């Protein structure tokens, strides 16, 4: 039966998750040079159109439709067939199924948008759209089904992911790694410094992301209940702990705590706690945030040393965050917090940690390999990279015939 409080809650959460995509566009857009800000925006924003269409046509049924061998949803709900105002008997049984569908749509939108940060300032718009579409079909939807779909094989094995550590962050991080290996660095990389053109924009984006993350994680309880409360609290605490940890380590390491560091640490904490949010209490959430800040800071620095042009650190923050968070859940999960969850290592159940590590390996490897193949093929057929002349001109003018700022 429909519960109005739950429906209100998940609708609000869906709105919040939608807002994360412009939030991400601002977060990323502030970090690129002024000639690439609109191009960077477009890569995120256009996911709203592209993935929403894909989702209502195919994605929802592939992800959540009646299970086929644990691997994928059948096409029974093609084009939202039978998906209406009545609650699903399987998912989120106290809210209209259409609310569950649109809430999940917002997750499918932001996931490929996350990838764009890795290859910022150098990718052509059209081939990127082709990639994003195929990636949604071949990576996002299957993994989503495995982990969250009723009957999904990873779910059946007991792998847990509260709000998208595997489905969202690890898949996009693995794709980012593939993309950085396939697409050469920005010209001038390693010699020039590419300073952020507008850090206040990045801070604004961080604020909107944090705000939206309450919907992302809190809403994943799919009801306005104690689990939602647990997830909301964990989210906030891990975000703030990530921010604190990154800032302190940077202060110690470089002598100054930076604004971008604080923002990065916050996003690292928020991303890392995502798989665990509804399954752990406040103290583990803080620990997860601290771990996220420390590990992601080092991952980003390590990347700098090995010379990967993961321009806006998708691997180091989302990939590593999704990885670390899913494993941490294996350590910190406690049925005392959420009976629908699991007991982890610290609750005396190392087997669950093993399952989580297994989940990470499978999803990471699958997402990486498929992404790499997709990118290689698209690159061969269409050419993913802008010309060096276009790179000098900037994406805004070259790909969109616009300039961001005029006076």
């Amino acid at each position, binding site marked *: 039966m429909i519960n109005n409080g739950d429906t209100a809650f998940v609708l609000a959460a869906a709105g919040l998750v939608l807002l994360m995509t412009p939030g991400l566009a601002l977060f990323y857009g502030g970090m690129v040079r002024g000639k690439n800000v609109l191009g960077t925006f477009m890569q995120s924003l256009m996911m709203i159109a592209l993935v929403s269409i894909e989702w209502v046509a195919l994605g929802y049924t592939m992800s959540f439709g009646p299970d086929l061998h644990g691997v994928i949803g059948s096409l029974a709900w093609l084009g939202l067939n039978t998906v209406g105002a009545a609650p699903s008997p399987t998912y989120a049984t106290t809210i209209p199924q259409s609310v569950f569908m649109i809430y999940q749509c917002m997750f499918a939108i932001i996931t490929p948008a996350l990838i764009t940060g890795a290859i910022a300032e150098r990718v052509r718009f059209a081939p990127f759209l082709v990639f994003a579409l195929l990636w949604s079909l071949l990576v996002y939807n299957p993994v989503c089904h495995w982990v969250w779909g009723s009957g999904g094989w990873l779910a059946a094995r007991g792998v847990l992911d509260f709000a998208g550590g595997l489905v969202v962050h690890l898949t996009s991080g693995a794709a980012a790694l593939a993309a950085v290996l396939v697409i050469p660095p920005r010209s001038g990389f390693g010699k020039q*410094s590419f*300073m*952020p053109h507008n850090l206040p924009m990045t801070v604004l984006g961080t604020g909107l992301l944090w705000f939206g993350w309450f919907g992302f994680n809190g809403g994943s309880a799919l009801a306005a209940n104690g689990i939602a409360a647990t997830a909301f609290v964990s989210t906030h605490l891990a975000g703030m702990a990530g921010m604190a940890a990154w800032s302190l380590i*940077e202060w110690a390491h*470089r002598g100054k705590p930076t604004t*971008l560091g604080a923002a*990065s640490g916050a996003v690292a904490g928020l991303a890392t706690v995502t798989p665990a949010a509804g399954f752990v209490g406040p103290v583990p959430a803080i620990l997860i945030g601290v771990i996220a800040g420390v590990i992601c800071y080092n991952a980003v*620095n390590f990347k*700098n040393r090995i010379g990967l042009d993961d321009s806006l650190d998708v691997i180091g923050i989302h990939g590593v965050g999704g990885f670390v968070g899913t494993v941490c859940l294996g350590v910190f999960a406690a049925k005392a917090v959420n009976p629908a969850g699991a007991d982890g290592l610290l609750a005396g159940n190392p087997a669950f940690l093993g399952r989580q590590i297994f989940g990470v390996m499978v999803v990471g490897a699958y997402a990486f390999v498929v992404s790499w193949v997709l990118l290689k093929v698209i690159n061969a057929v269409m050419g993913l990279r802008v010309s060096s002349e276009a790179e000098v001109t900037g994406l805004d003018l070259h790909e969109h015939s616009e300039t961001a700022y005029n006076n």
Partner: protein
Amino acid sequence: MKKIEAIIKPFKLDDVKEALNAKGIKGMTLSEVKGYGRQKGHKEIYRGAEYVVDFIPKVKLELIVEAEQVEEVIECIRQAALTGKIGDGKIFVLPVEDVIRVRTGEKGKSAI
């Protein structure tokens, strides 16, 4: 007539403007520039990496003055802009052949 170009530290602009005003110099044009010289640039941190930024924000003043005023104006700017630290800036004097006031079409000294 001469053109005086002075590159100064931005936070000294108000002082310089007032000093020139006190001398009766009422016309000038100002632009934001970046300077490179002995003054060391600053370090910026970007996600844990350090970068050195060489160019330092400066203000450039351009004034057309009569030849006989040049010394006085230079001294006036110099004193007002002085902090005694590296990067205080430079003053250049260039020859000017003519000046025209758009509004009236006046030329030469009376156009300054």
